[in-house]
Structure formats: structure tokens, C-alpha cells
């Protein structure tokens, strides 16, 4: 089976030169995206078969490539199968969307060759079963996505985004390289089976944990390693943004799970501390950043950081429970994390596709220039609303289920033996609750400003509904969000083999529970039934609508709206994205972003406009990244002297280096 999967990946790689050969011809984008759609669908179905237990041999294969004494190991197990499903589902949706959206691309030859290669890279990371092929595929994935980020290279901001991304990707790979090096030990056992068999000492394990958290976290966008993400994700073409945000961050989550849960062996209780801390910080900071943004795609990118935070909180809980031998609780937390991985890939893909459709229709990403699109693009507005509801974790959609399961896991924390965790987990839970509420506000703002109200620009006024392929992709994702929301038990049962592999336990079998409810631990404690919630909402909603239409007057009356006494209320006098965010900015932003508002009121009688200026600073960039950048610049300036030495001094440098190395050799024990 792994061979078939590899053949699929090879076909994706082979698409890249075909795309180059096709160039910018009219059919090129249809051919490439169509082929990507079919291949990712096939790979996804293959992986689903493995996940459902219909795997056929061989599941592992060693190819004579890569390091000569190692070879390239590839393997498919339930964990990689689960992530393969997520990735190829996302890839298929993005490809379908791109069948329509790709036609708006100005320079398709800059996108088409890298797109299938990028998909292939992500698949290869999941199939790799030794450190060398893992890192090579990881780097391949980074580089192809970097090429896609700078596809619109004429924009200076995109180039800067690409630069920051490249730096952070290099940093991430470096830490993963070190992590694998420590895992492999002095013997250099680089295949995963050998790493799993070896038991690292406590100190080494701690180092590996930190390095894996840094490496995978920088790719996933954990605060404070997220700096590249809100720059790079919006810079790429929208279907690639969807893949990067919805799918590639999941590859990073996979890397973390693979190293920490699978390769590193039995955890200590304190392993969960850094994971929980960074996860909670990402959740809150991500959503606060998202609320402050005006750029629609950047809002979505920051919201990805929030969701990654939620996933890492659930993973941290799973680690804590696993270390305390509470396997059932660990399975619950891990299921919550996996379910959120799955759900987030669905609705983030959907939302980025929606943002892409808006971008294609209006040419605008700035929320302050959108508005009223629900009249112009009713179908896009509908699916975007579903995505926004799902990501805001409102029942009966899927986002609610995974966040609810996470909170169920948090509620189990008093049973943990360690006092540190007993005190910390409720605090993390409070932060998570705060971020969930803020996320809802964030998406009310995004949807309300972009789709409701009156158009704020001509571009928004003249927007057209997007094409049928894009709509099909978005409807498909919305339908999956809905199904996963009302039938979560089905999805949870599908994941059970993964939790069994990693925690040795699973959640109770959900398929046998009556009325399609889900129960995290036992029916006596808590249960949730998405179908029932949906039925209730549908019935009460229908009843209310019926009652209003029947009992109240059903005549439509049109009249002028009261304009607060102002004669001409232009579109710019409406509630804006900034004004929506103002209360939250005043509560949180003053402290975190040191936001300062400055009002400028003209004298009475003056015809100058009144002004309100808001200044915000990015605390993480200024305290963490700017000093490092400054130091590198300073060191570069100092070392520049080395370019202009005399011949004798160069010789002295060589001589000194030689003597130093010989001294080291002489002194080394």
C-alpha cells in the first residue's frame, strides 16, 4: 500500500515538469489542477482505507536512495494515514477551488509547477520513516511553499514575507535536525524503528522535546515563533494560502506528534508544561492579533495561530494524562486534538477559499473597502458564514465538537496527581475560553464587515458571484463541516486506531450509543448530540419564522431608515472593522499591543476633518525578533572588516586557525 502511495506522490512530482512544459497556455491550469484533484483524492481514499483497517501489505518499504548505509524508509501507519486523509482532503478541495480560481492568476507559470510539488512534499513528510527522508521532504515542502509565497514577487511585502519565511523554515529544520540527531544517538540509528526502540535519558528526552516543540512549532505557527506565518500565508495565491494554513500547519502538528508521542517513549509529567504554555499563549495572542487586522486573509492567518494553540493545548493535556497513566483521559485529549486538526483543515480551507473568491471578485483584501457582498455574492456569503460559524465553535457545526472535547479533557485535570498541573490546567482552560469568545467576535467582525452592511468601495459594489468550480469546492467543505458537526461519533470512531497506537487507549465506542450522541468518558458525566442540537435549532427556527410570518403582518414595507439626524449617511459612516475592534483593543490592546489612540478635533468653525489615529506595536516582534535582527546586522557590520585585510593578515588568520585546530587536537582527551 505504501508503494501505491509513493507512486501517487511520484505522479504529483512528475506533474511539476509537465506544468513547466505547458507554460502559460490556457489549458495548463485546468490540466494541472485537475490532475492534482484526482491524485489527492486517490491518495486520500488510500489513506482512509488504511485508517479503517483495510490495509494491505506492504506497509513499509526501504528504497535504495538517500544516505548509502541507511536507504530511504517509507511507512504508512494509522497516524500517518490520518494526517494523509486530512492533507489530501484539503489538497483536493484546494485543487477543485483552483480549477476556477486559478484562471485569475496573472502569471500561472509561477504557480503551476510548484503546486503539485508542494502537495507531493507534504505527502512525503507523512510517509517518511527515517530522519533523513523526513528532513529532506520537510525541506522540500518548505522550499516549494516558499516559491509559492513569492509567486507574486512584484509586491515588495511578498518578498519580505518570503525572506522571513525562509529564515524561520531554516531555523525550524535546524532544530528538527538536532532533535533527530539526539534521538539517533552516537550510533547514528536514523530510522524511526531504531529510534523507537532506543530509550533516551531524561536530559536528552527533555532536549528533544524542546527542539521538537521549536521546530514543529515554528512551522505550525506557535507564538512566539509565528512571525512568518501572518506574512507568508496571505502572500501566496488564495488556494495556496488555504493549503498552507489549513494543511501544512497540520504536517507540523504531525511532526510534533510523531517525535514526542511516538519516538520519544514514555513522557514525564512536566513535558506538558511548555506545550500547554505555548499553546495557551498562541490561542489568546493569535485571536487578539486577528481582531486587530484589517486584511481579511491576515485575519484568517492569525486565526490559524489561535487554532494551532488549541490543538497544542489538547496535545499538552494528552501528554500530561499519558504521563500520569490516565490513558482514557489521554485518549480523550488526543482525540480532541486530532478532531480539531481535521476540523480546522476543513473550515480554514473553506474560509481561505471564500477570501480568495472575494479577492478575485473585488481585488480587495482590506475589510474597510468591502461590504454588502451578501447581495452580490450570496452563495459565497452563505458558505463563508458556515465556515465562520464553524471556526467560532458554535453548535451544531464541527468546531464546537472538538473544542467541547478539549474542555472535557480540561475538566478531568483535577484527577492529575501533580499539583503544578492541577493549578495550571484550569488557567489554561480559562485562556482557552477567552480565546473561543474572542474568536467568535473576530468572525462576527470579519463576516459582518465584509458581507453585510453597504459596499464601502466601487470594487465591492460591482462584485460578481464566483465561478461554479470554486463554489463546488466551498460547498463540499461546508457540507463536510456540517456532517462532522452533527455526526461527530462517526469521525471519532474513525480516529480510534490512532489514539490506541499513541496512548494505548481509546474513547468509548461512539457508534453504539443511542441517538448518535457522543460521550467523552461515560454517559453519566456528559454527552453531546449534534444532531439533536441541529434538529432543535431547525425546528425552533422554522417555528419562529412561521409564527412571525403568520401572526405578524406579512406585508413588506419600504421606507427611509432613520439616519440619526444626518442627511446623507454615506457608506463610510457605517460601523467599520476598526470601530468594531475598538472595545477589544481598549481592553486588551492597551496592555499587550501598547495601543494608543489619539483624537484630533478641529476648532469649531474649522472645515478640517476630525482624525483618530491608532498606534499599535507588535510586542513579540519588538522584544524577540528585532533584537536578534539587530544583533545579526551589528555582527555583520563588524565582520565586514574581514573583507579588507592585508595579505599578511589573511595569512595570519589561516595560520592562527591552523594552530588553534592543532591545539584542540593536542588537548582533546
Amino acid at each position, binding site marked *: 500500500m505504501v508503494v501505491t502511495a509513493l507512486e501517487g506522490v511520484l505522479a504529483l512530482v512528475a506533474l511539476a515538469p509537465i506544468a513547466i512544459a505547458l507554460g502559460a497556455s490556457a489549458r495548463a491550469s485546468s490540466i494541472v489542477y485537475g490532475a492534482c484533484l484526482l491524485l489527492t483524492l486517490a491518495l486520500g481514499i488510500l489513506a482512509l482505507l488504511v485508517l479503517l483497517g483495510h490495509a494491505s501489505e506492504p506497509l513499509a518499504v526501504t528504497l535504495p536512495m538517500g544516505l548509502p548505509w541507511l536507504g530511504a524508509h517509507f511507512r504508512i501507519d494509522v497516524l500517518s494515514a490520518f494526517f494523509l486523509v486530512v492533507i489530501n482532503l484539503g489538497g483536493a478541495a484546494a485543487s477543485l477551488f483552483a480549477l476556477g480560481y486559478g484562471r485569475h492568476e496573472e502569471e500561472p507559470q509561477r504557480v503551476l509547477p510548484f503546486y503539485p510539488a508542494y502537495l507531493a512534499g507534504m505527502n512525503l513528510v507523512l510517509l517518511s520513516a527515517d530522519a533523513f527522508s523526513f528532513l529532506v521532504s520537510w525541506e522540500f515542502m518548505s522550499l516549494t511553499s516558499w516559491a509559492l509565497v513569492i509567486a507574486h514577487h512584484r509586491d515588495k511585502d511578498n518578498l519580505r514575507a518570503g525572506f522571513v519565511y525562509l529564515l524561520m523554515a531554516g531555523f525550524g529544520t535546524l532544530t528538527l535536525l538536532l532533535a533527530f540527531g539526539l534521538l539517533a544517538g552516537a550510533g547514528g540509528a536514523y530510522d524511526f524503528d531504531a529510534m523507537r526502540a532506543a530509550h533516551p535519558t531524561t536530559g536528552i528526552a527533555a532536549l528533544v522535546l524542546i527542539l521538537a516543540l521549536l521546530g514543529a512549532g515554528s512551522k505550525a505557527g506557535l507564538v512566539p515563533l509565528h512571525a512568518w506565518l501572518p506574512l507568508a500565508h496571505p502572500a501566496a495565491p488564495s488556494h495556496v494560502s488555504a493549503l498552507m494554513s489549513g494543511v501544512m500547519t497540520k504536517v507540523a502538528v504531525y511532526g510534533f506528534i510523531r517525535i514526542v508521542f511516538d519516538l520519544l517513549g514514555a513522557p514525564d509529567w512536566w513535558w506538558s508544561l511548555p506545550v500547554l504554555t505555548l499553546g495557551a499563549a498562541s490561542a489568546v495572542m493569535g485571536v487578539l492579533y486577528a481582531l486587530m487586522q484589517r486584511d481579511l486573509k491576515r485575519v484568517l492567518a492569525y486565526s490559524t495561530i489561535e487554532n494551532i494553540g488549541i490543538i497544542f493545548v489538547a496535545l499538552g493535556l494528552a501528554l500530561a494524562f499519558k504521563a500520569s497513566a490516565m490513558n482514557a483521559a489521554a485518549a480523550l485529549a488526543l482525540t480532541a486534538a486530532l478532531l480539531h486538526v481535521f476540523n480546522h483543515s476543513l473550515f480554514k480551507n473553506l474560509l481561505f477559499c471564500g477570501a480568495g473568491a472575494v479577492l478575485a471578485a473585488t481585488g480587495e483584501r482590506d475589510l474597510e473597502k468591502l461590504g454588502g457582498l451578501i447581495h452580490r455574492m450570496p452563495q459565497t456569503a452563505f458558505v463563508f458564514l458556515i465556515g465562520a460559524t464553524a471556526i467560532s465553535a458554535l453548535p451544531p457545526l464541527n468546531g464546537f465538537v472538538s473544542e467541547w472535547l478539549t474542555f472535557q479533557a480540561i475538566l478531568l485535570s483535577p484527577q492529575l496527581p501533580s499539583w503544578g498541573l492541577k493549578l495550571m490546567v484550569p488557567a489554561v482552560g480559562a485562556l482557552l475560553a477567552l480565546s473561543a469568545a474572542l474568536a467568535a467576535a473576530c468572525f462576527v467582525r470579519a463576516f459582518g464587515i465584509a458581507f453585510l452592511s453597504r459596499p464601502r468601495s466601487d470594487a465591492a459594489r460591482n462584485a460578481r458571484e464566483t465561478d461554479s468550480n470554486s463554489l463546488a469546492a466551498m460547498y463540499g467543505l461546508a457540507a463536510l463541516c456540517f456532517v462532522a458537526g452533527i455526526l461527530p461519533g462517526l469521525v471519532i470512531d474513525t480516529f480510534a486506531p490512532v489514539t490506541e497506537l499513541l496512548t494505548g487507549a481509546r474513547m468509548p465506542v461512539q457508534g453504539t450509543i443511542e441517538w448518535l450522541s457522543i460521550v467523552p468518558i461515560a454517559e453519566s458525566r456528559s454527552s453531546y448530540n449534534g444532531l439533536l442540537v441541529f434538529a432543535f435549532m431547525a425546528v425552533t427556527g422554522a417555528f419562529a419564522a412561521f409564527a412571525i410570518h403568520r401572526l405578524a403582518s406579512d406585508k413588506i414595507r419600504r421606507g427611509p431608515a432613520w439616519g440619526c439626524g444626518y442627511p446623507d449617511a454615506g457608506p463610510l459612516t457605517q460601523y467599520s472593522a476598526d470601530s468594531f475592534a475598538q472595545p477589544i483593543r481598549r481592553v486588551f490592546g492597551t496592555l499587550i499591543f501598547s495601543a494608543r489612540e489619539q483624537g484630533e478635533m478641529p476648532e469649531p468653525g474649522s472645515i478640517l476633518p476630525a482624525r483618530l489615529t491608532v498606534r499599535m506595536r507588535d510586542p513579540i516582534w519588538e522584544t524577540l525578533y528585532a533584537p536578534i535582527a539587530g544583533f545579526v546586522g551589528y555582527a555583520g557590520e563588524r565582520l565586514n572588516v574581514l573583507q579588507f585585510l*592585508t*595579505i*599578511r593578515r589573511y*595569512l595570519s588568520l589561516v595560520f592562527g586557525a591552523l*594552530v588553534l585546530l*592543532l591545539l584542540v*587536537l*593536542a588537548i582533546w582527551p
Partner: protein
Amino acid sequence: MHGITFDIAHMLAGSLVLVSFIELYQDRLSALINTFAVHALVLTASVAWQAYVQDAPHLYITAIIALVFKAVIIPVSLRRIVVKLGIHREIDNVVGVGLAMLAGIGLVALSMVVMLRVTAEADPLAREDLAFALSVVLLGLLMMVTRRNAVSQVIGFMSLENGLVLAATGAKGMPLVVEFSVAFSVLIAFIVIGIFLFRIRERFDTVDVQALDRFRGERR
């Protein structure tokens, strides 16, 4: 190999190090060139002795190359260059003789420590030989660093090469082609640097490398 043959090889290699030291404190160019000729002669003797001991006739060719090029042609032409440039009485030293000698002693000690540690299982002659060769290389580098005149830097470079040849012949079974390449590299270096000297002289009326730095507008 044992007894007298070992002792003679040891003595010749040791003399090469000794001559390197002598080079180090020659601050007049003509004396330096003479010492370099002696250096090459000792090398020739050492290589020839190795050829005899190892019963490797191709090493005689190496010895002849060393004799003809390094002991005769190069010193003679360098002397002519120096006389032509009128700098044969020039004194050239950046650091004092005492300091340079101390540094040289330190380097020899370092190379002994390193080589004797690293090659614990090797053939004793090869060990000693390699340690001496490394000393010669390091002393040549030291000379290049402590001199300012281009001619003495050339000589430092070529005594460094002598050290390499010593190392190459000390190890058994070194193919001839390597020695040829070493000899040719020396020759090419000599030609290139010789041409350089004249060009520098034409432009700046001196072969003091400092003049070049002044020309580039460097701060010292």
C-alpha cells in the same frame, strides 16, 4: 627499518627543521636565499636516503627535482631578482627574532604532541617523519606571517612545500604523480610570484607588501 638507517633518516629530517629555524632568523634577503638553498639540499639528501632505504627508485627522481629546481634554479633566479631590484641588503622582519624563534619552538612542540598522539600505531619512522614535516610546514607558514617582503614570503611558501615533500616521501607507497604535482606547483608559484614581484616593483618602486596596503588606502 632499524638501527643506523633509522637514525640517519631521523637526523636528516631533524636537520630540515633546524635549517627552517636558521631561515627564521635570517633578516637579510641574500642570506635567506642561501639558507633556502641549504634547506632544499637537506631535503634532497633526506628524500634520496628515503629512496635508498625504501628501495623506491622513483623517489630518486623526486630528489633530483628537489635538487635541480629548489636548490639551484630557484635560489639562483631569486638572487638575480633581488640583485636586480637592489634589495639584497634590505632588512625584513615584522616581529623580533627572539619572538619568532620562541613561536617556532612552540610550533615544533605542538606538532610533536599532535603527531605522536594521533599516529600512535604507525610505523615509528613515519611518525617521526610526519612530526618533523608538520614542524617544517608550520615554520614555513610562520615565516610567511612574520615577513613583510614578498621575496621572503615566497621563500616561506617554498619551505612549506619542502615540508610537504618530506611528509610525502616519508610515507611508503606515495605515487610519483603526487610528487610531480608538488614540484610543478612550486615551480608555478615561483613563476607567478616572480612575475608579480616585477609588476609590483614597476608600479610601486618597492616589493614591500605594505606599499600595496597603502595603495589600497587601508588604515593600519
